Each structure stands twice: as structure tokens, then as C-alpha cells.
């Protein structure tokens, strides 16, 4: 299994509070991704990173920000959580994008916003 650790695994918080999710990898892969998974939808990309301090938006980036200060860590922040952000969040890593390599996923963070 790819060395990907997501923390926390579960979190319950209230609307309006800031939340930060962490993804840590031990594979030294260049690309890291944050997805959300909701019933009836395929995985949807929030943000991704193609190197330290290099990030870009995905299709559902509103209300989320990311940071990558080290190769191994990719943080996802909800600045002011809303109930629509209740979801399961997955981090993924890959060696290459243009080279068409698979993404490997962590086990997710289940986030509930009350």
C-alpha cells in the first residue's frame, strides 16, 4: 500500500469554524490531490499540487484552500466550514501526470459540519 496518512480520520465541527485536514506521504511523489466524495457523484477534485508551493484549483475549489510547504505534506483548509462541505475527503498522490501514472489514495477523512 502507498504510504499515505490522512488525519484526522473523523471530525465533527460546527458551521463557521475553520478546519484543516492533513495528508502525509512517504513516497516522495511530486503530485498530490484533494478530492471529496459524495453520494451520487464520482470523486471530485478540490485542489492539487505539482510541487512544493505549487498548487492549482480543481472543479470544486470554492470555500477551500491548500498549502504545501514540504514534499510530504499537503494541507486542506476550510476557512469557514458550511454544512455543504460535509463529505468524505480523500488525498491522493502520483508520480507523474503527463506520464499517465495511477493515483494512489489515502483512507479518507469523514467530516461532518453541524
Amino acid at each position, binding site marked *: 500500500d502507498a504510504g*499515505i496518512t490522512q488525519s484526522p480520520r473523523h471530525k465533527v465541527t460546527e458551521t463557521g469554524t475553520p478546519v484543516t485536514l492533513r495528508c502525509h506521504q512517504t513516497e516522495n511523489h511530486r503530485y498530490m*490531490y484533494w478530492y471529496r466524495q459524495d453520494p451520487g457523484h*464520482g*470523486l471530485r*477534485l478540490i485542489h492539487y499540487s505539482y510541487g512544493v508551493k505549487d498548487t492549482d484549483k480543481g472543479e470544486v475549489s470554492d470555500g477551500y484552500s491548500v498549502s504545501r510547504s514540504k514534499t510530504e505534506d499537503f494541507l486542506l483548509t476550510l476557512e469557514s466550514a458550511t454544512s455543504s462541505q460535509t463529505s468524505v475527503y*480523500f488525498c491522493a498522490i502520483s508520480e507523474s501526470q503527463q506520464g*499517465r501514472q*495511477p493515483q494512489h*489514495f*489515502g483512507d479518507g477523512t469523514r467530516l461532518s459540519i453541524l
Partner: protein
Amino acid sequence: GESVGLHLPTLSVQEGDNSIINCAYSNSASDYFIWYKQESGKGPQFIIDIRSNMDKRQGQRVTVLLNKTVKHLSLQIAATQPGDSAVYFCAVHFGNEKLTFGTGTRLTIIP
């Protein structure tokens, strides 16, 4: 862009039989395809991939078939076992865009 759909949201198969899970994609220029397995409470697990210059690729008990003419992808699991129960979904790569994921087929194994 790209969109991905699966033919069946659920599939029940007798233990020991073969399973076939299907996926359709929209963009004929898509060039890389991946199948994932997701068990309850876990993240998607890579099963097998195939590039558009191939029609078939085999792994351990799994085969992926790519029909570019009708833009169809299938995953075949041989001699299905109880541990194969999971949600299976495909992902498709098109150009410089990011992976597009299907919504998945839940495979249930009947003892």
C-alpha cells in the same frame, strides 16, 4: 472535457462466477484508464490501468478491456470471491485535464 458513466449501479454475482463491470466515457481522445476498488470505510485502491494504445490488459484474476470504437471500458474479475465485494469505479484521463471518475458499481457476492 470528459464525462464517465457506469452501466449498472449494483451487480450481484454468485461466488466462483466471473464478474463484468462496465464503464462508458465520452471523449474519444481520452488516453489513459484506471479501475479502482473501494471497500467500505477505505480509500480507492488501484486495481489495473490501460493506455489507449492497448485493447486488453491482464492482471491477477482481473482483465481490463478497452473498446475505443464505442468508448467503452470493462473490468472482468475471474472466479469471484467474497473479498471482491466492494464498489468498483473507473477513472479516465483526457489531455491535460485531471482524472474524471465514474460513480461506481457496487459488487455483491452471493455465497
